[in-house]
């Protein structure tokens, strides 16, 4: 258990899922891998397939249309998987909390390990969240 967990903390591969976000959070995620912030120095990498992921990063309110896909993706992920609710919408619903097509927020559907508030969160907030998450793991 020990060595595997240590390795997991050193190399988190992130799968990014947009569940009806406004593209604002998504751009901030890309900001984290730019030269200024460079999360690859902690071994954090974005992957294209949920099968390779250690972190499921969800942005946006969970709309009714995307709900079955979200559940499917969570079941397809290899365990252990960490779920992060990214931005105000995924954490609480944000300004869309009373919307007719809202099925979330995220923690009603799947267990969430970390919340990153903000609309959108700054890259510094993301790095702080990653550091806290690594401590918690």
């Amino acid at each position: 258990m020990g060595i595997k967990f240590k390795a997991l903390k050193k190399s988190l591969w992130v799968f990014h899922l947009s569940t009806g976000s406004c593209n604002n959070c998504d751009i901030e995620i890309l900001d984290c891998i730019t030269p200024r912030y460079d999360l690859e120095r902690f071994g954090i990498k974005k992957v294209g397939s949920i099968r390779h992921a250690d972190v499921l990063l969800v942005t946006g309110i969970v709309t009714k249309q995307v709900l079955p896909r979200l559940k499917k993706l969570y079941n397809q992920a290899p365990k252990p998987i960490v779920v992060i609710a990214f931005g105000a919408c995924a954490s609480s619903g944000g300004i869309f909390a009373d919307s007719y097509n809202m099925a979330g927020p995220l923690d009603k559907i799947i267990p969430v390990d970390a919340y990153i508030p903000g609309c959108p969160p700054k890259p510094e907030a993301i790095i702080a969240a990653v550091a806290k998450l690594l401590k918690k793991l």
Partner: protein
Amino acid sequence: MTDYIVQYFIFPGFLFTAAAGLIASWIDRKVTARIQWRVGPPLLQPLYDLVKLMGKETIVPKSGSKMTFLIAPLAGLATITLVSMLIWRVLIWPSQSFVGDLIVVFYLMAIPSITLIISGAASANPLASLGASREMKLILAYELPFILAILVPVIQAGGQIGLGEILIWQWNNGTVVGSWSGIIAFIVAILCMQAKLGLVPFDIAEAETEIVSGPFIEYTGTPLAVHKLTRLMMLFVIPMFLVTIFMGGIIFSGWHILWGILKYVLLLVIIILIRNTNPRVRIDQAIWFFWGPMTILAILAVVLAMLGL
């Protein structure tokens, strides 16, 4: 017999190649990061990735073929280990070469790509089978100029089909890249190697942005780690093969060892620079590139070698 087992699993074989491949992969990621003005990952990053993948859950697709899905990555790993052992045995003891081991090595080097096709087909995913079909086309494209380029050292060494003979000929008569035909064949071989390694201008089979890593898409946990390890080892073994047949290999005495390592690092940096300064090409462009300009250049190199240039 124990001699062979030790050689296969420890020194020129598995452990040594894996360690060298991990370091090569780290150099690749670090240099890429420095080119993009980033800091880049720490030295042990490739190792952390592999250990982490081994700790993850292994999922086998329900509609896929279970045995093939799990055995294909192991076959690739075993083959690339064997290639490394054959090349390093010749580098260390050139007299231990056997007739035709160049051909054996050449065919064994194609097997990791073939296991990639098999594992893509076994995972019952439309994107994976798309990646497998692209890999198949890519193999058809680059094998022809690659074998023509490899013919050049054979012709220059007087028609001897053995790694050891080519190596000894180069120690006596100067390296193959030193001649006109050698340098043309070497350029062709570098570009074919880029396609063999599946790196950027020719990473069409596992294009992450369009078919989400192609044949690897359904792999999780330990089988994915084995696939990644095979890729890392190829990053070490295939440039070593080119160093052996084109650049005079490594002489194991004093400063010559450092010189040999420098040859490998030079090739690695060329690979990394090509990978960082080029966009991905389409599969039809890749086939046109290899069957057109590359094959013509390789034929030119063979003709020049026949004329003794």
